[in-house]
Every structure is written in structure tokens, then in C-alpha cells.
């Protein structure tokens, strides 16, 4: 039975996605482009939770906008990438935990990230100047600038808080998307989602490439995104390996080039810098038609923070033995802090929600389809 209940559509962004999906569902020309459209076809109406789920399944490759016979200036004004992007940006804030913090970040992402970098860097510089100014420029010894325990005391709480906040936000997202029917998390679905996310399967316009700048597709954006994601994962592995070496192996920094923190961290940093810079460059040239309308939020802040993270990390590695070390360390730690603090309230969560949406999609697609009267007819083979 239909579940039309328009008042339950909570937000204008959800409302717009529902309006567009209703028209798309009657058309279905885009069904081969990505996961959004097959997922849409399993529904007849699009309540708020369905809209959130579909929006987070969308990778904003732009193909369906350029392929759409109803794109503006057509009066139906279908622009799925933009409607989905608007709703995604809004949904990050709506699912964030604790909810009270989210609106703050939703509008001021750039400022919060920037101020976090500068204030933490300033704090560390001040700390060092107050205790031992010489350590800033001298030895290449990070812990002379800021003792290891002080670093842990500063970063562990914010990191753990961020992890908790993200876990609870993800839970909010998953539960809301349930729409009353609890969706199980199965191993095959997780595996399929991991493969789809790992390859960024849906960031390719159905095979031709993204069309984020024009109707000429290319694969650059996917490449930059891959570099960013795998760069980040390598950096994360690098930091984790350092932590293990410090606490379990009693092997404190600094580490040589042939140790895991460097073997993972240097390529990771390079990936992060090239990838994030590429994404920023690419986003500047993006067709405004498929951008989110409100761009004051955490999207650009996230990419810039990643770029800062990678750039300061690499600079620190290269210039560790120079007088610039102290300043670079302070900046790098400022970036790390800004990254941690904005993580649950910004673009970082797109990875979590998208993975959850992909998992749900993998499960749905194997769980069977509804039956629509498909009369046998030549040339119109699909229901």
C-alpha cells in the first residue's frame, strides 16, 4: 500500500528530493547509472527517511543531471545531484550527536576548522616558548616541543569523543533509514559495500566518468577522491602503527624511513595532498548547477583540513632537522586537532553514511523486488 504522508516530510530538502524522485520513478531512464535509481525503483513514495537514504547513496557524479530530459530549464526542473547534495549537507547536521553542536558546524565549518588550526598551533607554540623556546628550532625532537604525554592528554579525549559522536550519528542515520523495518547488517552486504566503496563504483557516471564540470565525462574526480581516501587511510595506519610502537614495543619517535609510520605516512601524505588539492581544484571548476546551493558548511572545510594535514605532515617530515620544525609541528598538530574536532560534524561523515547506504542497498537488491504489472510487449521489456 502506498504510504503517502506528505506532512511527515520533515525538511524542504527532503521534500524536494521526494518530488524529484517521484518523477524519476515514472521515467527510470537513468536506472543504469548508479545505485540511487535501482534503490528508488523499490519504492513508490519517498518519505523523509527514504530521501535521506537515497541522498547518501548519491555520489554526485553529475551524469544523471546531464542525461536528464527534465533538467532545467524544463519545468519539472529535475536536478538530482544538487537536490541530493543539498539534502546530504543538511542530513549530516540532522543525524549528528549531540544534536546541539551540529547547527554550529553546519554554517561555520570553514571558520571553525581554521580557528581550530590556529588556536591549537598557537597554544602549542606558546606552550613551547614558555617552557623551552630553544626546543622549537633546535633538535628535530618533537617531544621537546611538546611532551608525548601532553600530546596524548590533548588529543586522546577529543579523538575518543569524536569516535563516540560519529558512532552515535551513524546509529541515528541507520535507524532513521529503517523506516520501521529493521534492516539487518549481513556479511555479504558489508562485503559488497566494501567493494563498491573501495572501487568508488558509483563515482563513474555508469562507466564514462564523472560529469561534474560539463557533459564531457572524465575520471579525474574519481582519481582524486581515491588518492584522498587511500591517502587518509594510509596516514591513519601510519599514526596507528606509531601508537603501537610507542606503547607496545617501547620504541618512541623519531622513526627512520624504513619503519611503518614512515612507509605508510609518506605515500599517505602524498596521496592526501595530491588528492585533496585535486578535489579542491576540481570543485572550483564544477558546474554550479550540480553544487550544493549552500556552500558555507563543512564540505570545503573538510577538504582544506585534509590538505593541511597532508601538507604539514610532509613538510614536517622533510624539514624536521631545520629551525622551522617547531612551527611546522605546531601547525600540523593544529590540523590534526581541527580534523578531530570537526570530524563528527562535517563532511567526514559522508564516508560513514555512504558506506551504510551502500550496505543497505546491497542488502535490498538481493532481498527481492516488488511486482509491477509487466505486460509482455515488444520493445518495452522492463517493468
Amino acid at each position, binding site marked *: 500500500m502506498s504510504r503517502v504522508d506528505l506532512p511527515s516530510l520533515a525538511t524542504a530538502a527532503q521534500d524536494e528530493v521526494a518530488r524529484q524522485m517521484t518523477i524519476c520513478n515514472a521515467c527510470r531512464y537513468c536506472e*543504469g547509472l548508479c545505485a540511487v535509481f535501482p534503490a528508488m525503483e523499490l519504492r513508490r513514495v519517498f518519505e523523509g527517511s527514504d530521501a535521506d537514504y537515497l541522498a547518501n547513496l548519491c555520489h554526485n557524479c553529475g551524469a544523471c543531471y546531464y542525461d536528464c*530530459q527534465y533538467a532545467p530549464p524544463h519545468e519539472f526542473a529535475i536536478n538530482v545531484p544538487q537536490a541530493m547534495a543539498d539534502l546530504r549537507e543538511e542530513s549530516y547536521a540532522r543525524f549528528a550527536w549531540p544534536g546541539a553542536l551540529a547547527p554550529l558546524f553546519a554554517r561555520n565549518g570553514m571558520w571553525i576548522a581554521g580557528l581550530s588550526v590556529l588556536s591549537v598551533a598557537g597554544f602549542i607554540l606558546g606552550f613551547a616558548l614558555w617552557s623551552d623556546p630553544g626546543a622549537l628550532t633546535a633538535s628535530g625532537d618533537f617531544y621537546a616541543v611538546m611532551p608525548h604525554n601532553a600530546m596524548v592528554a590533548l588529543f586522546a579525549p577529543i579523538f575518543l569523543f569524536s569516535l563516540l559522536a560519529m558512532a552515535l550519528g551513524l546509529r541515528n542515520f541507520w535507524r532513521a533509514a529503517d523506516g520501521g523495518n529493521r534492516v539487518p547488517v549481513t556479511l555479504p552486504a558489508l562485503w559488497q559495500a566494501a567493494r563498491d566503496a573501495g572501487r568508488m563504483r558509483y563515482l563513474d557516471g*555508469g562507466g564514462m566518468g564523472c560529469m561534474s564540470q560539463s557533459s564531457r565525462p572524465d575520471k579525474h574526480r574519481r582519481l582524486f577522491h581515491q588518492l584522498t581516501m587511500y591517502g587518509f587511510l594510509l596516514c591513519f595506519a601510519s599514526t596507528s602503527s606509531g601508537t603501537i610502537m610507542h606503547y607496545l614495543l617501547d620504541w618512541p619517535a623519531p622513526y627512520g624511513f624504513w619503519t611503518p609510520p614512515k612507509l605508510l605516512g609518506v605515500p599517505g601524505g602524498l596521496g592526501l595532498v595530491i588528492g585533496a588539492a585535486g578535489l579542491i581544484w576540481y570543485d572550483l571548476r564544477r558546474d554550479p548547477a550540480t553544487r550544493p546551493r549552500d556552500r558555507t558548511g563543512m564540505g570545503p572545510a573538510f577538504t582544506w583540513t585534509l590538505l593541511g594535514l597532508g601538507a604539514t605532515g610532509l613538510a614536517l617530515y622533510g624539514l624536521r632537522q631545520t629551525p622551522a620544525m617547531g612551527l611546522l609541528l605546531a601547525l600540523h598538530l593544529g590540523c590534526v586537532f581541527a580534523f578531530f574536532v570537526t570530524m563528527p560534524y562535517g563532511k567526514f561523515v559522508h564516508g560513514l553514511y555512504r558506506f551504510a547506504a551502500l550496505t543497505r542497498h546491497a542488502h535490498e537488491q538481493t532481498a527481492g523486488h516488488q511486482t509491477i504489472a509487466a505486460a509482455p510487449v*515488444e*520493445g518495452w521489456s522492463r517493468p
Partner: protein
Amino acid sequence: MSYDVLIAGGGNAALCAAICAARGGARVLVAEAAPMAMRGGNTRHTRNCRIAHDEGNGILTGPYPVDEYLDDLMRVTKGNTDAELAELTLQRSTEVWDFLEAQGVRFQPSLGGTLSLGRTNAFFLGGGRSMLNALYRMAEDLGVECRYETRVADIEIEDGFFLGATLEAGWETDTPRRETVTARTFVAAAGGFESNIDWLKEGWGEAAENFLIRGTPYNTGGVLRLMLDAGADKVGDVDQFHSVAIDGRAPKFDGGIVTRLDCVPFGIVVNQNGERFYDEGEDFWPKRYAIWGRLVAAQPDQVGHVIIDAKSADLFMPSAFPPEMDDTLEGLAGKIGIDANTFIKTVERFNAACLPGEFDHTTHDTCRTEGLEPPKTHWARPIADPPFRAYTLRPGITFTYMGLRVNRDARVLFDGAPSPNIFATGEIMAGNILGQGYLGGLGMTIGTVFGRIAGTEAARSLTNDRSSP
């Protein structure tokens, strides 16, 4: 400015011609009347093409031999086709796939086995506009000059010989700019005239005011008129078009596929007087889809209302517009503006005439009426479960048949003689092959086949080179 080939129109047929002419070494100008965002005529609203093939592949099951294709064509046209051109089209349809793919057009693969494959039709990945984008990219890469918002306002033809044309740029604005263009050949690929309501009235009278045009608003038949006025031979008549019954709330133009309503077999259809007028259960909806356009066009005010009840609400393709709904038949009658008493009597008579049967929407089932005129011969179930729903139907015109007569070189005929330098392809000449009726995806096939022929022949006519390009 001087060109080798001037092409009027910017849809699939025009672009196939442009690409082939450019590959043949010609300097090509495409004049598309629509703005860039709306380019491509009715191709923008299409989705697939019908291709003869001997064996299946990842996208089509097979085989669909030319003979069977021809049988299908003869069946729908009832022989109203130029047999020579029809056979040529279907023979060369076997090349369409490879040709389009080579231009960068992509087809819809089977999605993890969850979607059934078509046997006869190949679906464009992303639909017709995606296909157009690929053709435009290729044409631009080959150096074809594409001008948008530019229509062919006048054509100079002398005894079937094309001399030049007047283009009008920005013709929809207050400051149109006219320019005379000389070209050595001309390809008319500017579609039909279904968006020209005044022209439709010549065949249909005032009823045409109530028709909805499913496709592009830019098919106003300007080039067709110029060509006919210059003495080109005509196929078809002014009152012939293909129409379907679509959602009455669709936009006047450009509603496309989403205006389709598939609910007719699940209920009854009444006219503005609240009376039934045809057997809704005659056959599966897509097979009968086309006849309802004419049926509704013949009703008062060119309107029909499909009435279904709750048990049928989700059995058909989702529609773009929600139905009118009410818990009572009387309330529903009020919402759609018909007389409640007649309407309720119609429903009661229908309900009483429904025989018990096994409902199955996938076969010609045993649910039918007895003693009812007109009968409903399948899928007849009493309309009894509220809330009741009504979808309004109007005739939706998809394309016109009247066009230019051509020969197998796509040359336009003047008094039976092929023009030395005027060619036609696409909807403007599809009536040569599709004299009546319709086969899904055939329009794209005709446009591609004759577009290739027109472009290739136009380029070849400029040189002594007789080798294939």
C-alpha cells in the same frame, strides 16, 4: 559563410548525418532551433532503438531476424509502408549498434541480472539525452559547427536544387538575427509538426487545442512547410499522427515518458459525461496504449478519467502525478468534475456485470463482464475498495506522419525525381516507412539509418570519390 553541408535540426538523425558527412570530409553546419539545454528534438525523450540481430549479447537477447522485424512492421503499418525503404532500413538496422557505439553512445547492460533483457530493443544508458550528448561530443570533435537557437527560416530551391538558406539566430528573442548561408547540400532533419497546433487543426479542427504534445515544442514543421512549398513530394496526410492517452495534468509540451499512465486495464474509463466508451480490458495496456489517444480525442472535451480502487493502486508503473482520491464515488466525481449520479450508475452497472474469475495481470485472465456494453473482457474486478482514485487522460501527441518522400539514398523527391543535393532523415521522412501504427524504437532506427545515408551521400555528392568513407 559557405558550407558543404547544411543540416536543419539537431536530433539523432541530424547528428548521425553530421558525423557521417564530417567523416566524409565535408564542412558541416548544424542549425538547431532549440537552445543548447533543450537540443535534440524528440531524441531527448527517447530511450532505445530497435535493432535486428542474429544472436544475443550482454544487452539484447536474440535473435531478432530482419524477417521477423519486417513482419512486425507490416503488422503495425498494415502494409502502409514503402517496401523497398522498409527493407533497407531493417537490413541496415543491424549496423546501428556498432555505429552508435563507435560514436561513444553507450547501452544499458544487464544490471546484475536483476533486470530482464530486451530482445528487440537496445536501451541507451542514461536515456536519449545521454545518447545525444555522445553524438554532439563526437560531432564537435570532428569539427562540425553546431549553432543553437538557430532555425532555418527560408530555403532557396530551384527545380529541386538547393541553393542556400536563411538562418535566423535568437529567433525566440526580441532581436532575431538573419544570415544567408550558402551550402552545397542540404539535409532536412528538423522533425515533424506536432507542436504546431494551428497545423494540427487543419486535420483535427478545434479539438487540437486540447491535445497535449508529448515531445519537444520545437517540432513546429517549419522546414517541412518550406520544403513542401518548394515542391517536394509529400508522404502521409495532415491528420495522421501517433498519439497515446497520457496524464491530463501533463505540461502542454515536453512532458515525455513520465506522463504515461498504465492503469487503464485495472479499472474503467469514463468520459466527461460519466459514461464508459470502450473495452478497457481488450489487451495488455502497452499494446492498446496507442489506441486510447484517439479514443479520448473523440470524447467530449478530449478527456477521459480512469477510475480504480485501492486494490489496484500499486499494480502499475508509478506515475509522476498523484491521482485524485476520495473515500466515496460521489466525492471523487466532484473532484474530477463529472455528474455524480451518472458516474455512480456507470460504476454500479459495471460492478454488477463483473463475473467471478481468477485475477492475473500477467495473462489475459478470466475476469470479465457479462451483459455490459461496452464489455470489459479481462481484468474486470468490481470497483469497491476505497479510497477510490481517478487519473485524468488526455490525448498526447508523440509524432506526426506527414513528411517528405525520399529514395533509398535519402534524397528528397520532387515530382518523383530525386534532388541532386537535398536529403532528408528522421521524423520528417519516417512516414515513408512508418505509414501508420508504431513499433517502439523504430523512430531512432529510421533516423540513424537514414541519417548515416544522408550524411554519407551528401559528402560523396561533393567529390568524385566513389569509395566508401
